[in-house]
């Protein structure tokens, strides 16, 4: 039995299902990131775990104990809010001490714990300040110290980085990740930022319209997306829809893409291809697709080519601007051929289910669900 288990968790608001039967097993010390666009149900899921939102159905089991009926103050979850939610009338040290004051603890123990937490987030010199006298980054560290002070069973982070300056964000993401790993904190974080999620998670949960699209490690999602949505959301895959027939995908506008892998079942299909796995070359016979360069942009480390197969279908290719894998630059208006290996493309059928590549070693999705 896992440490924390969400079992068919659902939340209904009137006619809409904000969260639709989310099932997830979380191990002790694991960092899980719920990722998805706004309105996908990730925050509602987090708030159900915290106890601020009642589940319409399903169970939350922590250490073999059903906690779904417990009020928030009896769940032992440390939560860091998007706006930090510090108590404005209390100094930093009193903010951190708040949760300890709600517990039976001697004054000496409490003060020692507060001091330890403030050292941990490097704010010991600001203990007497009021929250409004701190910068956003400092406020956020107070919020983390306050949540950790109670030694929570689970740490919940609701978009913890979204109110920080862009340049601070990556540093803080790393700090949180290191802290989480070193203290083996079971953590669930919610974010809409794919980069942030990739950088911090042990496993990611991609959500859309209240449903879990895929659960897995970064590589799982990136290399083996379970749905076109995951392919697009994680790493911005090219998504092309068309009709699969005889190893080719005929797209809107009449152009054909020669699939690198071999797939069963003809009919409507969607192809996902990673931009950075596409090689551009001067027109050649053996290629996945042919087109005309529409835009060529030098982005620093990468060069991006937008290639038009026809007036309605475009494919983006990205490659390093220097080094052994550096791409040849093509001018706008030049004809090019595009090539990619079978391992870099994913085909989905009309109901967005993955179609396995028959020539490949079995690319099981079992690994994804059985992991953990």
């Amino acid at each position: 039995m896992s440490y924390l288990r969400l079992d068919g968790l659902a939340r209904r608001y009137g006619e809409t299902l904000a969260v639709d039967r989310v099932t997830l097993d979380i191990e002790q010390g694991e960092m899980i990131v719920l990722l998805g666009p706004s309105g996908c149900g990730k925050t509602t899921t987090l708030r159900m775990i915290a106890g601020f939102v009642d589940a319409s159905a399903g169970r939350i089991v922590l250490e073999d104990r059903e906690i779904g009926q417990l009020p928030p103050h009896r769940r032992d979850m440390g939560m860091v809010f998007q706006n930090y939610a510090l108590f404005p009338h209390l100094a930093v040290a009193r903010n951190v001490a708040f949760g300890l004051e709600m517990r039976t603890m001697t004054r000496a123990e409490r003060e020692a714990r507060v001091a330890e937490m403030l050292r941990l987030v490097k704010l010991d010199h600001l203990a007497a300040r009021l929250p409004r006298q701190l910068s956003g980054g400092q406020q956020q560290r107070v919020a983390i110290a306050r949540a950790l002070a109670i030694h929570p069973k689970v740490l919940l982070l609701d978009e913890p980085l979204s109110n920080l300056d862009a340049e601070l964000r990556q540093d803080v993401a790393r700090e949180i990740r290191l802290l989480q790993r070193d203290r083996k904190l079971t953590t669930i974080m919610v974010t809409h930022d794919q980069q942030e999620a990739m950088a911090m998670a042990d496993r990611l949960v991609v959500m859309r319209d209240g449903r879990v699209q895929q659960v897995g490690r970064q590589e799982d999602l990136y290399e083996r997306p379970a749905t076109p949505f995951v392919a697009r959301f994680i790493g911005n895959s090219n998504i092309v829809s068309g009709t699969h027939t005889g190893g080719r995908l005929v797209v809107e506008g009449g152009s054909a893409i020669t699939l690198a892998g071999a797939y069963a079942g003809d009919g409507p299909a969607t192809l996902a291809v990673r931009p950075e796995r596409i090689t551009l070359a001067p027109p050649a016979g053996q290629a996945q697709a042919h087109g005309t360069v529409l835009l060529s942009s030098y982005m620093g480390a990468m060069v991006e080519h937008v290639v038009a197969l026809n007036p309605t279908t475009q494919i983006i290719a990205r490659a390093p601007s220097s080094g052994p894998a550096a791409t040849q630059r093509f001018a706008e208006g030049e004809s090019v051929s595009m090539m990619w290996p079978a391992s870099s493309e994913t085909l989905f059928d009309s109901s967005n289910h993955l179609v396995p590549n028959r020539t490949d070693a079995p690319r099981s999705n079992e690994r994804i669900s059985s992991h953990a």
Partner: protein
Amino acid sequence: MSAADIYRPSLGERAGEGAMTLLLVLSCAAIFLPLILTFYLSAFDEQMIVFPPRGYTLAWYSQIQAKFGAAIWTSLRIALAAVALSLLVGIPAGIGLQRYRFRGRDALSTFLLSPLTVPGIAIGLAIYVLAIWVEENTGVTLAGSLRLLILAHVLICMPWVVRLCLAGLSNHERTTEEAAASLGANPLMVIWRVTLPAMRPGIIAGALFAFIISFENLEINLFLVAPGMNTLSVAVLQYLGYHIDPLVAAVAVVQIVVVGAALMLLDRFVRIGQAIR
């Protein structure tokens, strides 16, 4: 920057500024002149108010205790009791109105604030008639009791408390309450440790406003004071019926000082303009 860049107001603009200044001075004069005049009159060494006075004296102030002491004390007691009761009901009402969306919320909100819109004289008369009606039908004496007067004052104090509590909560982050709950605070503890501290300026402002409203009230007191018991406002009115002497001005000064002190105290906690917007 060259000299040509320096902004020079035109003649019209300068005339406009002059007019604004004049208007400001006149307004201030209109506000403060009666106050200053009251101070001035209270020091006349005359039995009647006549210009110019023979001389000046502070003797009138020494008579306040004897002539109006009991009334001031009654007014203070009523105001303090009414404020306490208003807070007891008004603070939870404010929290409830701000937090929950329920059927009849708007009606309740209007009801709680309605004494603001009804003339005090009408409230006084209505309560008086009600008290008589209750007495005739049940034999319970209500009219002329201090308790009824205090309850009537609660009625006019409450809207201020509710309104200022609501204003005090408008900037309150509800997530801080969730944070407290996640840290182990039960719902009562959340209110005590997080919500009430956040409301503190609103509560203080509401209490002081309510105090002033009660202390200055005349219309309700006129109907509900018991024989032999006088509030300051009624006592002053009665006194004015027979005498016009500097003693009334002296009493007015005392009242101005009490209310002014309350307002200054208030301003330390909240900017008044902000609280009653």
